[in-house]
């Protein structure tokens, strides 16, 4: 399974999202590759990914992709990430 964490620049928020998504996946026992990407790279990466994690503001910029786009409001809240990611990965 491939997951892409997307932010505007690919260095700050997407890296945080990637780290916390990996923590959640480990606790769920799910084997998945999580990649951080900026919005420019993300449109391409999202074509081959199963899941895209991003913020409400950037979701429309990703456009129409086959991946399931999941919006995270609080990047520090593992409970929120767990609640939203669990149904998508199981």
């Amino acid at each position, binding site marked *: 399974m491939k997951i892409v964490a997307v932010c505007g*620049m690919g260095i700050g928020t997407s890296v945080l999202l990637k780290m916390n998504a990996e923590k959640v996946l480990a606790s769920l026992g799910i084997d998945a590759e999580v990649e951080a990407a900026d919005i420019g790279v993300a449109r391409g990466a999202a074509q081959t990914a199963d899941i895209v994690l*991003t913020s409400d*503001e950037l979701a429309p910029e990703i456009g129409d992709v086959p991946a399931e786009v999941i919006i995270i409001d609080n990047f520090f809240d593992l409970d929120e990430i767990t609640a939203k990611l669990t149904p998508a990965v199981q």
Partner: protein
Amino acid sequence: MTLNLAEELSSITTKATASDWRAAIRLAGDGLVAGGVTTEAYTEEMITAVEEHGPYIVIAPGIALAHSRPAESVLKGGLSWVSLETPVEFGHASNDPVSLVIGLAALDHTAHIEVLKAVAGVLSNKEVRARLEAAETPDQVRELLSSLATK
């Protein structure tokens, strides 16, 4: 947590006053410039990032991670910390208003990951977050962050 975030912060400002989100980002940018981390151009790049992509840098309730991409304006990797006396609106749907702005500059896409882990570790703890918000002076912020790193 092994990394001491206090040592990574090029500047800490508490009880700062900002009229709007641009002013708040400028304060974080000034902290990076003062610490020799970036040139003033980076401050404008952080503002442009929000103008282009919206307030997605408001990553949690009350917290903005201001940053742009690695560029000539970045002299070295670093962080600045600005807590605001009065929170400001960034226009974010669920995480406004913002009371803490962290400025982030990085030379590449991987060098600062340990620092971000430390930031996430500190700020995802609600009790720690409340104590940091209550800190009146930069020294109090520094002491608190140092005490967390040694635990």
